[in-house]
């Protein structure tokens, strides 16, 4: 029996590897978890998309639970996501702050005119410096921020209603209850 045990080591090792491979099939290697979860939104001071003179600071956003959505007109998936965002903002379940990333002001404005504007505030990050501070590596990306400015969740890629209802909404309600 002891003999069998010794020669079954390779089989055992393979079983462990296979288990990991099976688990791996269900994971997305391209998704990078954000180290910013549990931390505050990085400080910034940027103009809005609508007006180069209006400066928004990170402190201005304190006091409410909101979604911070990184978007751009050159981003194809953002277009797909936009309808969902418009729908969400109309439902009044959550406020959405936009971060327009490395974009053209006129293009961004005409996009909002044509497709609707779901954003309560739309920050204009021409150089992408704040996006780097947020650890953004693609668009769209969405952060869930509480009233103290702490990031609780990050999603890379377009938001679907399914994702919102199943994952984001319970967290939002929870955060709102806590104040």
């Amino acid at each position, binding site marked *: 029996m002891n003999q069998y045990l010794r020669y079954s080591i390779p089989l055992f090792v393979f079983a462990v590897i296979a288990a990991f491979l099976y688990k791996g099939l269900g994971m997305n290697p391209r998704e990078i978890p*954000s180290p910013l979860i549990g931390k505050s939104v990085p400080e910034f001071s940027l103009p809005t998309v609508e007006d180069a003179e209006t400066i928004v600071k990170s402190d201005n956003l304190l006091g409410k639970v909101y979604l911070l959505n990184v978007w751009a007109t050159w981003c194809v998936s953002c277009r797909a996501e936009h309808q969902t965002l418009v729908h969400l903002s109309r439902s009044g379940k959550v406020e959405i702050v936009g971060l327009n990333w490395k974009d053209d002001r006129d293009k961004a404005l005409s996009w909002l005119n044509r497709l609707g504007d779901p954003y309560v505030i739309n920050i204009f990050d021409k150089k*992408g410096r704040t996006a*780097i501070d947020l650890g953004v590596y693609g668009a769209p990306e969405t952060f869930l921020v509480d009233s103290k400015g702490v990031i609780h969740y990050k999603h890379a890629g377009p938001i679907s209603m399914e994702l919102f209802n199943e994952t984001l909404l319970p967290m939002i309600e929870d955060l709102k209850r806590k104040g």
Partner: protein
Amino acid sequence: MRTFFLTLMFLLILPSSHASTLAEYTFDEPGKAEDFRTVTEEMRCLVCQNESLAGSNAELAVDLRNEIYDMMKAGRNKDEVIDFMVSRYGDFVLYRPPLKPSTYPIWFGPLIVFLIGGVVLFRILKRKSLTRETKLSTDEQHRLDDLLEQSTDPRDNNQ
């Protein structure tokens, strides 16, 4: 969509062959240029996934390179740059995993693998040359082998 995924099986690496250069990044301080190269070469371009920050021309990679360049120009050192990147993108950006408790298995695991190899070697050799010092003739050796093999049988323990 599948067209976009190049599908050659077992092909060696295929990062885009669109190699970038670091020609625009110059430093006055000696050694800084070397540091800059090492840092950017040992970091992952996040959007291309298997290209280094130094070698990629993806827009984000260029931005990050510029950011790192500005930091190093302003007198920050390698470690500060690494901290900056890790606090934003996580350990994932580093091709060289940082040394910390959660990565001990990666850095010290190999020693254990070596140890296992060593133990296996030792055990086999011990078994194979157990009777080296006795200098028996081949016949005696064979008889001894038989005896030894028998005595490993539990039934023979009390003999």
